[in-house]
């Protein structure tokens, strides 16, 4: 379809409504030369710049792109629900042969929800929290199919069953907050399909869900497509999801479709540079651990001397000169210069419980971390993988001594640090640093980049102002950012750049262990790959050890030496990355591995 989706073919597609019978030209949606722009204070900004594609009946067309590519704008423009300031400048959107562009709001309303369904991204915000889910489905049915109240209620239950909710009768009477994220998304899918639409637009329908849930939800969409012969426009950032599910793929970048064709063509023989890059960096599709890049290995040989901030490392004289360097000093003396402990971090039998208040009074204890033990060998990457609620982040926070455990011990470099507090704990920060998931939240918006990076140095009174500024600039280069960014604020940087700044900051004081809590989850895939490569390079350059937390086995595979799989607070399986990935022992690990999108592409 798409590759010859211009000229005569599109023209005939426009008449598809009169010719349902001719299968070949049966395009439900024909988009021609669509331009969309947003009005901003500084003039209008083009978000979509002349895209054309068609959606054949009963097929799934994926629009793949990274943030800012215009993919979401496209999906909103298709049903004329652009965010404020958005405007369709030119082009046509023909749905069943009629152009939606000039249509009145009134006509559009009968099409939206009736003929065209919409599955939104965030299931936690898209349902009315005060309405029972059954009623929310029934609302669409009564509006578009003019069903009676009783008919709509029965139909709603049938739909809930169809989207795979167990015990649909009971579920229909529940409120959204009583359902899990996956169930809520199924309800939204049910609403989208409620009126038996010709076309469903799904904007990142599974991005907010865990991988195993994502898989089931996507399976469910597949099934509905087959059963109802619905067409779907699947908007996603995840090429692997598109690879698994779509018949056709259109890759968007900077408001343009840079490549489109059948899924097979695009993935196996990408022609555009951008698509190639995207295919290479998709974590679900990549399969190897990243190796340090050559330039770093070269530098490694001539490093140590001349590097400004290596002087700040505790192992060197400057570090131990701090009078109150309790941990550094005690570690040095207990280690007795003989040999550093082979394991930089050992945690054993960690337990952390939270009291949950139940509705009917009384409380229940949640064992967020349940008897967790592991060791992180020096200079390697130990990863904890798990889905939301698995306890992986809590474990990492305890290991980093941000949170405290109910019982169990954390020992760093052979020294028990479980109950450090006050100044001793502060001194531990010289050796253990943390990089957070959200680079938009972890940097103070009021500070300059230079100040942010130099903050640990300032906190430990290392060097004077000019020295710290120099170190900050040097660190910027280490994380491949231009030193000219030093005076900018975080808000002026992209997500990937901010995460680089956060990494630079964690390096400033010369730590030995860095705890990375989902450091790439908030980033676009092509940026993810760059950051992971950076982490691998820095690890070699500075002899760092990583405790890496992620929900994404694809990412974990690229960086880990050892892996622990967690669920419900327990470590189900642990071992070397190779063993866990190629020969998973626990059933849940296998399920996780199978749920990684992109299987079909292999």
């Amino acid at each position, binding site marked *: 379809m798409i590759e010859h989706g211009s000229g005569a073919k599109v023209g005939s597609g426009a008449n598809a409504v009169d010719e349902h019978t001719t299968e070949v030209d049966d395009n439900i949606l024909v988009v021609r030369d669509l331009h969309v722009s947003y009005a901003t204070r500084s003039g209008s900004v083009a978000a979509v710049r002349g895209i054309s594609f068609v959606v054949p009946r009963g097929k799934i067309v994926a629009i793949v792109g990274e943030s800012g590519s215009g993919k979401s704008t496209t999906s909103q423009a298709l049903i004329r629900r652009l965010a404020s300031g958005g405007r369709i400048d030119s082009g046509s959107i023909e749905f069943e042969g009629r152009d939606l562009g000039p249509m009145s709001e009134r006509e559009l309303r009968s099409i939206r929800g009736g003929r065209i369904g919409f599955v939104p991204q965030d299931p936690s915000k898209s349902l009315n929290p005060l309405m029972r889910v059954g009623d929310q489905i029934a609302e669409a049915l009564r509006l578009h199919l003019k069903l009676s109240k009783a008919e709509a209620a029965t139909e709603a239950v049938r739909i809930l069953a169809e989207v795979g909710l167990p015990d649909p009768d009971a579920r229909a009477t529940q409120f959204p907050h009583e359902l899990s994220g996956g169930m809520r998304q199924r309800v939204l899918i049910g609403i989208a399909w409620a009126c038996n639409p010709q076309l469903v637009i799904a904007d990142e329908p599974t991005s907010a869900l865990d991988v195993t849930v994502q898989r089931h939800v996507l399976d469910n969409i597949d099934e509905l497509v087959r059963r109802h012969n619905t067409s779907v426009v699947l908007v996603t950032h995840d090429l692997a999801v598109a690879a698994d599910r779509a018949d056709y793929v259109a890759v968007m970048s900077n408001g343009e479709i840079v490549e489109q064709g059948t899924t097979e063509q695009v993935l196996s023989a990408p022609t555009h540079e951008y698509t190639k890059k995207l295919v290479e960096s998709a974590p679900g599709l990549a399969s190897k651990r990243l190796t340090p890049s050559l330039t770093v290995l070269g530098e490694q040989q001539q490093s140590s001397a001349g590097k400004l901030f290596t002087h700040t490392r505790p192992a060197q004289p400057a570090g131990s000169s701090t009078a109150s360097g309790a941990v550094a000093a005690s570690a040095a003396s207990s280690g007795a210069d003989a040999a550093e402990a082979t394991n930089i971090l050992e945690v054993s039998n960690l337990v952390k419980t939270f009291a949950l208040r139940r509705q009917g009074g009384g409380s229940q204890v949640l064992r967020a971390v349940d008897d967790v033990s592991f060791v992180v060998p020096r200079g390697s990457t130990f990863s904890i993988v798990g889905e939301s609620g698995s306890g992986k982040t809590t474990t990492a926070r305890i290991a980093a001594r941000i949170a405290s455990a109910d019982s169990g011990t954390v020992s760093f470099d052979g020294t028990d640090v479980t109950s450090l507090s006050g100044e001793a704990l502060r001194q531990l920060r*010289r050796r253990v640093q943390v990089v957070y998931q959200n680079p938009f939240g972890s*940097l103070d918006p009021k500070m300059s980049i230079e100040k942010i990076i130099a*903050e640990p140095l300032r906190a430990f009174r290392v060097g004077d102002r000019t020295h710290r500024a120099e170190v900050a600039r040097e660190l910027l280069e280490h994380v491949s950012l231009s030193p000219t960014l030093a005076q900018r604020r975080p808000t002026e940087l992209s997500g990937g750049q901010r995460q680089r700044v956060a990494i630079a900051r964690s390096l400033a004081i010369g730590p030995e262990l860095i705890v990375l809590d989902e450091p790439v989850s908030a980033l676009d895939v092509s940026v993810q790959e760059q950051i992971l490569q950076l982490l691998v390079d820095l690890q070699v350059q500075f002899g760092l050890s990583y405790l890496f937390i992620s929900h994404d086995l694809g990412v974990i595979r690229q960086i880990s030496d050892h892996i622990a799989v967690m669920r419900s607070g327990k470590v189900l399986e642990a071992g070397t990355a190779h063993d866990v990935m190629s020969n998973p022992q626990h059933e849940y690990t296998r399920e996780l591995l199978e749920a990684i999108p992109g299987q079909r592409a292999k």
Partner: protein
Amino acid sequence: MTNLRKPGFVLGLIIIALAIVASLAPQLLATHDPFESVATDRLLPPSAQYLFGTDNLGRDLYSRVIYGAALSLLSASLAVVVGVVVGAVVGLISGFVGGRTDFIIMRFVDVLIAVPGVLLALIVVASLGFGPVSLALGVGLGAAGSFARVMRSQVLRIRSEEYVEAARTLGVRSPAILVQHVLPNAARPVIAMAALELGTAILSVSALTFLGFGAPPPAPEWGALVSAGRDYVATNPGLSIIPGAVILVVVLAVNRVARSIGGDE
């Protein structure tokens, strides 16, 4: 910067600029000596020579209004400074320390807010003696409660921000976190509120000087000028109305500019 394209904002700025000049260097704007009485020119209507007319002692009302700006605006500004500083410190401590300290401090703040501002100001003025400084202290303390609440809510919000936790894990000490992270990020709403409060403070100060709690005569405070014109309201209403209108215009200008600073449009 887009504010500078809005005529209301620009007009407000001009009025405030004039008011500032009047309070710092009144001789630049005044046409007469505000204390000199010309016996033959009593209770004259506005004219080219006397822009706002003259009062019952033959003093130029325009010049008295200009010279009055210093006392009225400076004590209003001082009041806001007192309110912001006291309120911000209390709110900052309350929000950052939390727990029992927070509880106790906030109950005191509740009491402070429960007492009407003017009444509180009267109490302070009565115990410290009449005059522009004690007036400012009184009005400022009256406003401190709301500042404390705003500051505390900001601190509570920022305390849970990830960059604050990040700073802690970087090894930054608590006082440094407070000064480097919490305060700069909490400041904006407090500053916006301070700007709005300035208008209210001008009104409160004028009201109290109208009642005679300010500097003793013949000091030309705005409220006192309105008060002095009261006796001639039937024959020369301008004596009260003109200083009143000046107060009104300045307060409006301050509020208009404050609204833009607060990003409230």
